[in-house]
Each structure stands twice: as C-alpha cells, then as structure tokens.
C-alpha cells in the first residue's frame, strides 16, 4: 500500500473547573511528505462536543461523519442538545462494530454539557474502549509529553491555566515528534460557548530547551533535586 494519509499527531484534551480545553497540532503526513501543514483535527460532532482525530485521516473523518449524522437524528427526536457521554458512546459503538475494518486510530471526545454544567473528556480508541478521563493525550507526539502532563496537570484548573497547559503540551510534542507540527489549534468549550484560538508556528510556540516559565520551573525542580 502506498503511504496512507495519516494525521501523525498530537492531541490533548483536559477538563477544567468550568468546561474543557482541547488542542491539536495541524500536520498531515503522507509518508515523509507533509500533505497539509495547517489542517484542523478538531472536528465538531455536535454543538457542544468535539472529536480530536489521530491516525488514519480517512477513517476518522468517516467516523465523525457517521456520528454527526446520528447526533443530528437523535437531537431531532429528543428536541434537546445531546449529552457528551452519549456522543462518546456513539463513537465507541462505531469503533467497536467496525474494529476489523478501521485502521488503528485513537480519538478523543470532549465537550461541555450545559444541562449538567459539566465538562467531559473521553478517550475512545478504535476497538470499543471508552474511558472517561480528567485529561487525555494521544497521537504519535503524545509519548513525548507524558512526563510534562503528569507533572503539570492539576485538578480544577482555571480556563487560562488549562489553555496554557494544552498549548504548551502540544508545542512540546511538536518540537520533538517529526510527525507533529504546524500550528497549535485550541478550542475551549464552556458555559459561554465555543472559543477557538490558534498559535501560529512562530515565537509563540515554545520548543524543548527554550520553553516558557513552566519549563524553567521544571528544570529548576530537576536541578534542585540533583543538588
């Protein structure tokens, strides 16, 4: 098979005190060729829930199309916005029922329910697993930021804290992972609506070794431990 179009990716989703922040890089690779340097891997599934796609672009786009269709039908019948856990369950059902046809792809579902005033982050890889998490990371770049996330994640962050946590995590992964890159796309979902932000690939994106305060803190901590 020729190289499949793949979103060798870094995706991050985190729940904070009043909603969720999700983020992704923007690189799409076809083998070694970057076929899109500014793609959007944050796909809306409903008015309040998003799918973060990693792995095969074709497969995950198809999953999101099916789920959007089902969400639409469901909301028409119920005459109210769908719940985020229900959206995640639909992604899981498609992933489970087609585990032999879909190539390995990790997807995250995240969103905010106005009815329950509750943010939700679900890890939903192909195969049928569905796990609710406080924060979730995935994609090829995620392996480089487990340490960062483990040490920097806090329960009940503010919106600002959560946004810089996600942006920084993705920026760090992009600087190390060859298949992650481009820009950092951020989406915040809360009571007031949906807010999109973009960090272009200039000085606003830190790299390993030249990070902003957080990483200076980390380095300081590490140095302190050594002495």
């Amino acid at each position, binding site marked *: 098979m020729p190289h499949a179009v793949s979103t060798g990716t870094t995706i991050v989703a985190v729940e904070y005190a009043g909603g969720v922040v999700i983020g992704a890089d923007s690189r799409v690779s076809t083998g070694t060729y970057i076929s899109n340097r500014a793609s959007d891997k944050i796909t809306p599934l409903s008015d309040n829930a998003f799918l973060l796609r990693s792995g095969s672009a074709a497969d995950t786009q198809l999953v999101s199309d099916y789920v959007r269709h089902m969400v639409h039908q469901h909301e028409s019948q119920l005459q*109210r916005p769908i719940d985020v856990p*229900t959206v995640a*369950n639909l992604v899981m059902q498609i992933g489970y029922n087609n585990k032999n046809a879909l190539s390995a792809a990790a997807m995250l579902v995240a969103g905010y329910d106005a009815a329950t005033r509750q943010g939700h982050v679900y890890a939903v890889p192909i195969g049928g697993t569905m796990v609710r998490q406080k924060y979730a990371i995935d994609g090829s770049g995620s392996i480089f930021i487990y340490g960062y996330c483990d040490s920097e994640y806090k329960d009940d962050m503010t919106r600002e804290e959560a946004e810089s946590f996600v942006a920084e995590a993705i920026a760090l992964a992009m600087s190390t992972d060859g298949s992650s890159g481009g820009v950092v796309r951020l989406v915040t979902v809360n009571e007031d609506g949906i807010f999109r932000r973009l960090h272009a690939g200039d000085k606003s994106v830190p790299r390993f070794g030249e990070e902003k305060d957080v990483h200076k803190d980390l380095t300081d901590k590490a140095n302190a431990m050594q002495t």
Partner: protein
Amino acid sequence: MSSVGAGYDLSSTTFSPDGRVFQVEYAQKAVDNSGTVLGLRVRDGVVLAIEKPVISKLAVPGANRRILSADRSVGMAGAGLAADCRMVVNRARGECQNYKHFYGSAMPTEVLAERIASYVHLFTLYWSVRPCGASTLVAGCDQSGGERTPQLYLVEPNGVVQRFYGTALGKARQSAKSEIEKLDLSSMSAKEAVKAAAKIIYQVHDESKDKQFELEMTWIAPETDYEHRRVPADMLAEAEAEAKAAIEAMDE
C-alpha cells in the same frame, strides 16, 4: 353481501365506506372491558394502579401481574388481553435494552412510548395479523441534568400515543377519570398519590358485577430512588384500609 356497508369488519386492511377500520375499534373494545387501570403523574413521581379481578379462589394472590417493568425506572400497566400486554412489554424491554446499549443512557419515556406505538400500529396494517388488544400506560421518570421529570403516556391499539397528567382505562374509566380530575396532581406527592389511586379504584369498583378484586399498585418516586417498584405491602394495606374507610364514610 346482504347490504351496503356490511362485511367491512373482517379485515384491518380495508376501510369501511365511512372511513373506519372496524377491527381496530374491536381491539379497543377488548381494552374497554378490562379491569380498571389508573395512572397518576404527580409532582415527584408516577403511580400505576390496576383493579385485577380474582378469577378463582385458588389463584395465588399477587400472581399474574398486569403491571410490569420495561426498564429499571419504566413501568407499564396493561389493559386488555393479558397475552397481548405481555407481548408489548417484552418489546418495550427490548427497545430499552437496545437504546441503552447504543446510546449509553436510559431511554427517555417519550421515545419509548413512541416506539411502542409504532410497534402496535404495525398490527393494524396487515391482513395476516390481528390488531393488538391491549392499551398500555407507560410511566417513567426521565433524568435531565440533575432534575427528574415524571412522565405518563398512553399507547392505544390504533397506534396513538398520548401524554397525560392522569388517565384511566378499562371498565370504569369514565368515573375514574372524573375522580382524577378532582385531584390536584401537580402539587401532590407520589406518596399521597398512592392513597388517592387506591381510593379511586375502590370507589369505581362495581360490586354488583365483579365481587372480588386485587389491587395491584406500583410507583416511581423519590422513595424508590426513581426506580419502578411495587408499592410495599404495608403501605398498600394502609392505602386500601383508608380507601375502604373513606368509601364506608361516603355511603353513610
């Protein structure tokens, strides 16, 4: 054919010249002859009650239930042919399971009622089947956010669904309905509704025709953690005693 307009009641696939489907109307008659069934939707729950005639002195009390559960918090009371009621409830159980499996959350009562209605409606469309001789009251308590909303629906043999604060089916439906209208359902608690339902069932019971009956009653309330349960024996006995006393007082 002996006269114009005759012979149109043999199949549900043929309309009569004045636009009726007699077989479906006959199915409704089967429901109307049933023991009285009552549904009350109140402030914090739903109560289902049924007047079940005792067919034999050898029948085991509490057996042959007519109010069944379709899901943890969905109750269904059937009027009409018992076997048809059971068929409908079995279908409802399947629908609830299926919904929960696919969407990961409990089926909203309205969606369930509509699906049951679509199911019984199918039996009015083909010559190879007879219409469903059962009406069902579907009681549920939907959760949206932290709120619980009590729901009561009626599904008729013709496939119609209706949403109610309170309604009655069977023999004494007319007098039962006018008694329900006297209640202040929106401010009543489920606990109070249990007593009110018992009282109405005893009140509308026709002693000259049916001597013995058993009162079967279930509820969905804060007391049951919003699950569909039978009213506890002691509570039922108390409600029945109060109902009998009230009726004796009225007779005097």
